């Protein structure tokens, strides 16, 4: 232990986690979507629409109780692309049927919404007609209509909660995140991978299969994301694994030591020390 450096996921990854946190019973975080029954069903999944075009929302949450889905796209910048906005406008209830269970006699209704932070909201809201879920330092609120009276009412007033602590671990990292955000996940994945293969003759860490397995070990949503997104994540893991192992002889020896079954307390503490140094070197300002 004792790394103790600051961990800041990218704003986009953070917004995904903040939204997912609303759909779970999460301590010190509002569960305004969990209470009416919304549960996250899709993360980073491309949806092929009947119109022939595709959308790639970050998260889709479905409430069985309300027969309603929220299709959420997280916005970390100041702009909504008009072309993306137009494609989201083509989403029909039947398009979601292939991806989530359609419930209730009337089928599933849905709302596309953007998820943003209060600092960017005014600028983003000028570019779209879709509703927003907006996070402030100690509140979450909705803007616009979600086409579901209960949710419209619930989100129309800010839910204020002192001491809100952002949940950060539902969705670990995205392909475009910075090296220092991805590195700890890859380091942990390397240890898990070699420990899983210990006692076997080879540890082909350079193989594509190894990178695929590392992704499965460290990314809980790997099994249900779109193949394009998954490929990008595997590529990212490959790049980072190669960089870490080719440049860091002591790390390479520790990883192989763990693979030989030497993962005692001392070895893991040495590994912690190596991780701490590497993470510090790869953090912002040290690249």
């Amino acid at each position, binding site marked *: *232990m004792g790394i103790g450096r600051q961990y800041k996921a990218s704003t986009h990854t953070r917004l995904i986690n903040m939204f997912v946190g609303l759909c779970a019973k*999460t301590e010190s975080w509002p569960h305004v979507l969990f209470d009416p029954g919304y549960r996250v069903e899709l993360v980073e999944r491309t949806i092929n629409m009947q119109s022939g075009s595709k959308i790639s929302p970050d998260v889709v949450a479905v409430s069985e109780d309300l027969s309603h889905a929220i299709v959420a796209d997280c916005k970390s910048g100041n702009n909504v692309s008009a072309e993306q906005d137009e494609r989201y406008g083509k989403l029909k209830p039947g398009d979601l049927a292939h991806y989530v269970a359609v419930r209730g006699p009337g089928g599933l209704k849905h709302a596309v919404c953007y998820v943003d932070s209060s600092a960017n909201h005014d600028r983003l809201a000028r570019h779209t007609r879709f509703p927003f879920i907006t996070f402030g330092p100690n509140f979450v609120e909705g803007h616009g209509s979600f086409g579901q009276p209960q949710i419209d009412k619930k989100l129309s007033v800010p839910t204020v909660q002192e001491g809100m602590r*952002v949940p950060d*671990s539902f969705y670990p990292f995205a392909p475009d995140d910075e090296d220092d955000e991805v590195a700890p996940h890859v380091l*942990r994945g390397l240890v898990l991978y070699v420990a899983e293969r210990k006692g076997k003759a080879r540890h082909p860490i350079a193989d594509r299969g190894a990178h695929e397995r590392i992704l499965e070990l460290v990314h809980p*949503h790997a099994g*249900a994301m779109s193949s394009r997104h998954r490929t990008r994540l595997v590529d990212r893991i490959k790049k980072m694994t190669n960089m870490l192992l080719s440049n860091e002889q002591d790390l390479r020896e520790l990883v192989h030591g763990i693979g030989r079954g030497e993962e005692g307390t001392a070895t893991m*503490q040495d590994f912690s020390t190596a991780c701490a140094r590497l993470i510090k070197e790869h953090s912002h300002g040290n690249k």
Partner: protein
Amino acid sequence: MTAQAMDGRLRRARARPELANALEDMILRPKNGEGCPRGSRQGELKTYMLESNGGFPSRLESDGMLCEVEDAGLDRVKIMRARRGKDSTEFFLDMEDERFLRLHTVARAEDADRIVDALVRDGRHMFDNVWFHPAMLKRLADKQGSSFRSSGAACSDRFLRSGEGRREDADSPSGGGLPAKKIRDSAGSGRHAGRAAARGGARSMRGSGTDPCGSARDGTRGAGYFAAKRGKSVQDHLRLVDACKVEYSRTIAYIESLRIGTSEIEGKMRVAGGPFNFVFPDSIEDLDLFIDRMFNSDMPFNLWGMKFAIDEGYFKIMAIDLHANRPIDFEITKDFMRVYLFKGGCGNTLLRILANLQLHYDANAMCRQITDSPSGNAPD
């Protein structure tokens, strides 16, 4: 209790007489320990329950100990002999449930403890103790057919800095355990007294207390240890162990149903799951020390982790559960801890964390998703 569950239990009870007979033979076998030191408990039937994620190999070596498994001539029961130098200790290895193995022995508790401890510490075989948190211990001791008799209390200095206080680690319902009252007396009164003393063990009674041949008085310890203290009914002892195993495995199944990850539901791949929320009614005083002790790769937590500050007084720990070799994430403040158990992770880890936090850190630490789980409150 449903008729189906009752039927299942009766079938299990009927399926065990051979094992009970074998254990009675084991108890009655002439002891080679006439010179046993005073206070040793050779001859007393003890059962250790282990959680296993990898089955039990026919032969394993660990830290100078050699364990060999051979056929016992009983259905799903083997004999395991553990040898260290000239010493040999014999267990009946009950594999009726391959995830929750039961090791029965009449060896001295010190010898048997050492062997079971070595099995758990050797990470290669993915064994873990089962962890009865204090509320579960009380509930298990009260199970139908048993009556809760008394509890032993425990406290420890696992979360103190070196030089602070003294060690009072008493994970036993008998002998070594400090009674809760004594701990309260020494720690003062009020909230901190309750925080210091957790139930580390319980005693229960099955059958008629006036008939030693038809009853069993069992001592149960948090780490899955059952000792038949008095009485001679091996069947009653086995029934208590079986009942505890059934409830424990239900709780594990419930915990694992809440893991975060993907699963195929109605032919569609979807994500599911959420964090487990632990709360500390008395705030953690030294968060750095708390995190350091929890994630130092050592027993009992058996967790390794990288610590990151998310915000002031708010940390993320990217951890590895060294028992199952699986990732597990934590977000910790002085008042709560979120635990993210991912698909493939072991539900036993959550019970290990809860039981040891209550035993070693704060008896009032709570995770309602576990203690109020449907399985936790399921009727017998």
